Each structure stands twice: as C-alpha cells, then as structure tokens.
C-alpha cells in the first residue's frame, strides 16, 4: 500500500466520485445536443420531401379535405415584407441609439437607465409586443382605418429587434480602440465625421453580424404576429397590401400545424424547412465569419 501510494488508485473514493461526475457531465452534454439533431433531422426529412417548384409559386388552399394544399408563396413574401418593415424601423433607431450610448454618453444616470431599459425590453415576452401593437394600432385603426396589417406586424417585430440592434451597436462601437477617435479628432474632424467616417465603418462588421442575427431571429417570431398581421391566403401584389392582413411563414406553421388535415400539416413542415434552413445558414455563416475575424484581427 505504501509502495503504491504515489500511483493512481482506481478504487479510491475520490477517483470513483470523479469518474461518476465526469460521466454525468458527458451524459448532460449528450442530452443537450440531442434536441437539435432530432429537430433538424425531422425537418430535413419531413420538410425536404415537400419541396417542389409549385410550393414557391402557389397560394395555399383553404383547409379542407382537399388533397392538394397548394404553395406558400404569400407567406414567404409576407415574411420578407414584414421582416423588412421591422428592419427599416429598428435598424436606424437601434444604430442611432447605440451610437449615443457608446460615443456620447459618459456613464451618467441617463445612459445607465437606457442600458437598463434595453435589457428589460429584451426580456419583455414577445407576445406582449403583439398585445401592445394591437392596443396601439390594430384596435384604434390609426393606420388609415386598417386593422390587422402587415405594417402593424412589422412594427410589433421591430420592438423585439430594437434591443438586439442597440446592444450590438453599443458593444461593437465600444470595441473600437480610442486611438482611432483621438487621431480623427486630432486632425480636426468633428464628432459627427469621426463617428460616421471612422468608428462606425470600423465596427461595421460586428454590428452587421449582430443585426443580421437579430433579423434572422425576428423572421421566426410568431407570437407578435398572430393578432397584428394575422394571416392571409392571397398573393401579395402591390403596395396597398401592406394595409391588409398578411401571411407569414411562422404564422402559417402555427395555423397549419393545428389543422387536422394531412395536406396542411405537410405545408407546415415545408415552411419549417425553409425557415429553419435560412435561419441556420445565417447563424452558421455569421459564426464562421466571427471566428475568421477573430483570427485575422489586426488591432
């Protein structure tokens, strides 16, 4: 025993315990990666089988015992339109607000409050954003008398995107070294020129990555849309359609998953396929880009 005391002893309680907890931790990690694998596999199999050219061009047929469900063209275009509206609202506001926080504020109570507010707003349940827009815009018919509309849906989504955009801008700008600012101000540029010509372009890549991830996240949001944009079976043909009910992939999945008909369920799987593939592509791509940036960082 004394001879062996310096060697690793398997049966010692501390070693047995270590082994046990290590396998427990490995077990946790295995369980943690299972959901993604299962979800993605099923979506690839069940959704991938439904992908046809007609899917992208046809309107969905109203649920019934119709064997042919049609396509998801209106929902696909609707998601693009609604997400674009949300981006048009939240990117300028968010980037502007982020610029103030990172470049002008000096850590006083106002900026502390805004940063706190950004975090709180990020934690507001997404359905509350829908309820808010419903009360403010849908039920008051403030937008030229239209009730449920793509525009209202876009506004609800923009509330969810806003905290993400502000946070990424704020953090992206804070990473820009102060020397760049001093140099620019030193040769006589104004704050405004410095920010627009020096700091913002330097931080562009990290801000863009964050914003694109935010857009991808918003594209999959459903809760804010179900009673703001509602849903529509018809093609989006013109500008005035913004003021009417508008379909989206997310709401299509929600509505058609709960239908008792197989044809509609299949359409929901197809929509999930398109949604998940685009969101995962954006995520993986930005991840690779971030890793690449990390390696080639000069400053």
């Amino acid at each position, binding site marked *: 025993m004394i001879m062996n005391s310096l060697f690793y002893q398997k049966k010692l309680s501390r070693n047995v315990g*270590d082994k046990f907890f290590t396998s427990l931790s490995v077990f946790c*990690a295995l369980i943690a990666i299972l*959901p993604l694998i299962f979800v993605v596999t099923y979506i690839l199999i069940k959704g991938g089988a439904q992908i046809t050219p007609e899917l992208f061009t046809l309107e969905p047929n109203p649920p019934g015992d119709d064997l042919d469900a049609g396509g998801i063209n209106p929902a696909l275009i609707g998601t693009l339109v609604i997400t674009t509206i949300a981006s048009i609202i939240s990117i300028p506001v968010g980037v502007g607000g982020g610029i103030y926080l990172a470049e002008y504020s000096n850590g006083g109570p106002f900026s502390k409050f805004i940063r706190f*507010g950004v975090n*709180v707003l990020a934690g507001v*349940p997404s*359905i509350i954003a829908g309820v808010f827009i419903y009360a403010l815009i849908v039920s008051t018919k403030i937008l030229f008398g239209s009730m449920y509309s793509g525009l209202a849906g876009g506004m609800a989504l923009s509330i969810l995107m806003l905290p993400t955009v502000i946070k990424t801008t704020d953090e992206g700008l804070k990473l820009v070294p102060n020397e760049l600012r001093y140099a620019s101000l030193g040769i006589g540029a*104004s704050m405004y020129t410095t920010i627009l010509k020096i700091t913002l372009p330097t931080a562009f890549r990290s801000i863009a990555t964050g914003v694109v991830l935010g857009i991808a996240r918003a594209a*999959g949001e459903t809760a804010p849309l179900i009673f703001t944009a509602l849903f529509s079976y018809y093609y989006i043909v013109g500008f005035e359609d913004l003021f009417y009910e508008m379909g989206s992939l997310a709401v299509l999945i929600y509505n058609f*998953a709960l239908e008792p008909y197989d044809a509609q369920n299949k359409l929901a799987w197809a929509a999930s396929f398109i949604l998940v593939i685009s969101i995962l592509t954006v995520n993986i791509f930005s991840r690779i880009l971030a890793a690449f940036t990390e390696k080639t960082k000069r400053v």
Partner: protein
Amino acid sequence: MEEKLTLFKNRKRFGIEKNIDLIFKNTTLTLSSLVGIVLFGIILVVFFQSFESFSRYGLKFLVTSEWNPVKDEYGAFTAIYGTLVTSLLSLLITIPLGVGTAIFITEDFVPKFVREIVGSFVELLAAIPSVVLGLWAIFVMEPFFREFFVFLHKFFGWIPLFSSEPAGRNSLLAIIILVVMLLPIVTSIARDSLNQVPKKLRNASYGIGASRWKTIFSVILPAALSGIMAGVLLALGRAMGETMAVTMIIGNSNAFSWSLLSPGYTISSMLANQFGEADGSQVSSLFYAAFVLMILSLVVNIFAQWLVKKFSLKY
C-alpha cells in the same frame, strides 16, 4: 509666430458644421430615449387597457379560475398557475442539465474541437424558432412520449401530479419543450461565468490536493454562482413569456387540474388563443392577464440584472 496666429484663427469651426454636429448628437439622443419611451409605453398601454377589468374584478381575478365570456366572469388562476408551474418545473430540469453541459464544455474531458462543436450545437438550438419546435413537439415528441406517460400514470398515479389519464396534449409536454428552449440560455450563460473564474483558483485547489470534481463543486461553481443564477433568472423570464411552442402542445384548457398529464393553460397561450376573437370585457380581461405576465417577467428580469451588477465584479 505670425503664421501660428493665423492658424489659431482658422481653428474656429464653421457655424454650419457645429450645427450638424449638434443635430447629429441630439438625433442619436432622441433615438436612444425611444427605448425608454417604448418600454413605458408598453407598460402604460397594457395597464390602461386592463383598467376596466381590474376595477371590476380586482385581485379576485388572480385567484378564481372561471373564464366565461357569456356570463362575463373572468379569473386567470389556471393560467397563472400554469405559467408558474410549467416555467419553474422546466427550470428545475434545465438547471442540472445546462450546468452539467456547461461544465463539460469548460473542462477538458475531451479535445477542444469536440467541446466547441457541442457548444455551437447547443447555441444553434436557440436559433430554432419556437413555432417550429411546437410543430416538432406535436408530430414527433408527443407520439414518442405517449407510452411513457401511460406508464407514468399507471405506476405513479398516486402522486397528484400524475393523477389523470394522459391527454394527447398536456402540461408535461409543454414542460419538456420548455426544457429544450431553456437549455441553450442556461448553458451559454453558465459557460461564460465558468470561463470567467480565474485559473489561479483552480490551480490553488489542485495544489492543495483536491480532486477535479472537488474543485468544481467547492471552488469553481461557488465562484461562478452569481452569473449562473442570473442566467437561470433570465431563463425563467423567457419560460414565463414563451408562447408558441407551449400554446401548440399544452392543450389549452381552462379547467384547473393538479395533474401535469391533463391539458393546461399559461397566460401567454391564453393570449395567443383568445386575443384574435375576443371583444368587449374579454379584451380587457386578456389585457389584465397580459399585465400580470408583464409584471412577472419584469420582476424576474430586473432581479436578474441586479444580481449581475451586484456580483459580477467579484474577481
């Protein structure tokens, strides 16, 4: 000397440039204050819309579970209970699972690239939209667990939580899908806080002869505790507000039951289900429920932020 003086004179900026600078600053100031305005706007609007229902039912709304648009009787107890039970129970399952995974990612049991793959898998899970998880839950997860629920009822039916015949869609399925959604949040925040623990602490612990897991339990986890707690609270806030996947799988029944195997309700699923078709005093009652949900998640979120601020600078 004279040259210097003329340079000095030219140092003055043009009025227009000064103005542009000022306008730019004030624009960004306005844009950033919009966050505060939107936040207060949400709170005020939801509060005022719920005022009618609030003045009629008062706090009774929180403890009765009658929801009858015909008789104009509203009480959200079932939904509030459902919200709290599903989020707390799912958190209870997620915490060990998420922290265990975070330990796996931060320790060196396996080569780094394997850990990185596990880490990004878990993070990518967070990118899957909740409505897609709901679809998956309906068509894949529910059939998978059906037998298990029957077994659970058969052998553990004496526990009130499993006392009813398993329904096709029920609270327990909602809890499981919530675990899937919370796992990325808890794991990534726990991983970040574990990574922030200084290496010195670990080395000191190894140096006095502690084993790896003695070190993890007695040194590393306590040091990272505040960060993990904050992550857990953020996850709790997310769980309470989570709508789509839960709505699709929980069964949406306002009948109160202790059993997790019977259909349930949460505030957010009630909103998702009824808001579109509601009118009259039902709308106000739904706003009241939304207000309760908002207060719950605000309290949790603010507490989480306070926790982060209070303890984050310890090392």
